[in-house]
């Protein structure tokens, strides 16, 4: 059970984030410490039971995350699993991540987070989250606190149906790794580190399914692999799974099942980067692992802006 002070802090930050009020640096630090303590106790692969609502990439699109919670109901009413990529690109990466952390420390058994390839120092310093923190706070401290939390986020989840008959669901941000045959092997990874450049931990966060190849191929991303039909089928069989649920790739329809419904990509950032015109989706698994997709669109954003501490980049002074 979270302590009373934790509950109060989390509840206050949740309210402030929803109103787009800037969260003081000290509160961010405190929340990050609380989250670390909680996350470090989780195993690399979390066992979660149904019913569960699975969400894909958010990428700092706070308004769309709030829409998601409105449509699928706020935690703790609905139990959630987020497949990573909370940050980068969008305007509100920090607030998005803080909101998820608040819910996590407030309702640890009702929301689960796994790590995406963007939850990394190297990637966030290139794709926007670092710039966002610097602009909002005038220094990179909150970025550092968040990156320290990233290292503790677990890598995947295993969902078993209440009936226990049909195979379970394996949830991961990216996909398969040629170095991982059984899910149990993932439990042996020392995950508390920056995402490595290669190896199984990297692959799990970076790989993509590819319909036109049977097995493995090098990924054009420069990290992880492309994996095809055959490898996916073998992995499902070997691990007694009915489905691999992953995120990591924009799909215009919000979700896409491939490989005879053995793998699904779930994407939860509608109109990605204000330009892609895609819809978003979440996947709800019932007790007998029946899949229901809820599709939603972006909203015109109408909340206050977080004021900038560093309004004009130094180049223009």
């Amino acid at each position, binding site marked *: 059970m979270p302590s009373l002070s934790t509950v109060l802090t989390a509840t206050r930050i949740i309210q402030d984030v929803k109103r787009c009020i800037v969260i003081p640096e000290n509160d961010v630090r405190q929340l990050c410490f609380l989250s670390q303590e909680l996350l470090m106790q989780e195993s690399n692969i979390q066992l979660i039971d149904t019913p569960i609502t699975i969400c894909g990439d958010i990428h*700092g699109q706070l308004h769309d995350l709030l829409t998601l919670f409105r449509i699928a109901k706020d935690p703790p009413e609905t139990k959630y699993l987020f497949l990573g990529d909370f940050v980068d690109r969008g305007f509100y990466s920090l607030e998005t991540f803080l909101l998820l952390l608040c819910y996590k420390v407030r309702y640890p058994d009702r929301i689960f987070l796994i790590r995406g390839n963007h939850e990394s120092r190297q990637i966030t310093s290139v794709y926007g989250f670092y710039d966002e923190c610097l602009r909002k706070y005038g220094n990179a401290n909150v970025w550092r606190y968040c990156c320290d939390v990233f290292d503790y986020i677990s890598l995947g989840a295993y969902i078993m149906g209440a009936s226990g008959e049909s195979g379970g669901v394996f949830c991961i941000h990216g996909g398969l790794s040629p170095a991982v045959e059984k899910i149990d092997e993932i439990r042996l990874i020392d995950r508390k580190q920056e995402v490595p450049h290669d190896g199984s931990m990297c692959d799990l966060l970076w790989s993509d399914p590819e319909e036109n190849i049977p097995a493995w191929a090098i990924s*054009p*991303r*420069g990290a*992880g692999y492309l994996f095809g039909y055959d490898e996916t089928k073998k992995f499902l069989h070997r691990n007694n799974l009915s489905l691999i649920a992953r995120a990591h790739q924009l799909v215009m329809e919000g979700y896409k099942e491939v490989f005879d419904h053995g793998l699904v990509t779930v994407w939860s950032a509608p109109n990605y980067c204000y330009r892609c015109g895609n819809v978003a989706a979440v996947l709800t698994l019932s007790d007998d692992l029946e899949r229901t997709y809820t599709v939603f669109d972006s909203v015109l954003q109408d909340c206050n802006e977080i004021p*900038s501490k560093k309004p*004009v*980049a130094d180049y223009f002074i």
Partner: protein
Amino acid sequence: MTSHDYIQPVRRILTEEDLTRWQSSESYNGLVAFIVRLADSVKGKELGTECELTPSVKDILKVLDSIQTIIGRHPVVTDKDISRFGKVEFRDFYDEVSSSADKLISLIDKTSELPGVSKELKVYLVESWGNRTRIDYGSGHELNFMCFLYCLYKVGILDLESDSEALVLVVFKKYLDNMRILQTKYWLEPAGSHGVWGLDDYHFLPFLFGAAQLAPMERMRPSSIHIPDYVDMFKDKFFYFACIDFINQTKTGAQSLRWHSPMLDDISGVKKWSKVAEGMIKMYKAEVLGKLPIIQHVFFGSIIAAPEGVSATRDLSGIDEEHGHIHIDHDPDSNLHLNTFGDCCGIKVPSAVAASAMEKKHFRPVPFD
């Protein structure tokens, strides 16, 4: 130049140390000076201004026209699979540019006096249009087009005295027009996009050149980018406003630049265009020429020489994404089934040897998210 040995350009910048060497190299300084010179030449000049076109500039325009024709030959037909954002027909366009690169270069008459020069020029020209595999485009590809022009200047085909203004107002304009067609037709994904935290999804230089055009303006302030009438009035005259117009048209879901382009919104608070123009050059040096994820893709040959002391090329390893296509059948010693796409070169497949050589190397290019 009578007999000069042109060489196959390769990528050489791999580590932070390489990047530091690059930033103090002759190639870097030359390229920066070239871009600054081009920007200076259009101060106060509008697009559409009559300017003298030398035969070589006209030849480059022929190249760009031919590329536009190639775009026209590859319509988007596979709409049935709409899951992917980028349109796969971009690869057909790219392949045609790639296979006709020598012919395209030969349209520039003076290249015939420099045997072998095409070997270097065509790498930069082909790289200018985006990445074939990922179907994306970013400021690194834009930089390749600058490298292409810089090479033409270095080998003596272009003359900055007579050509600078036309290179920006006519040649770069034409390049940008082609890019806008490619971006909208094939839905090119923004390469390495910082999302809302970057200057723009695709481009940097039209902002740099555009701010230079506007630099002498005292009355109209940078904040005027927020006024729709101004954007409408100036979008055909200044690159900067053309870019704002493009953003306004393509970004949806937020009513203001503040949300989808906070950087441009910030810059609009600067008092004078001359400050914006100076800032753009500083920012280009830091955010494009000073960033490893971009510079690791820059090619070096004999015209743009590799900085002294940088890493050996990684392009010979077979991991290279676009050049020296290597196809290898299943390697029995490897636990990976190496297969290529049916459409040839869909995804690069390295040899197991090259792959393990890469494992040993700790330096890996920053991946594309």
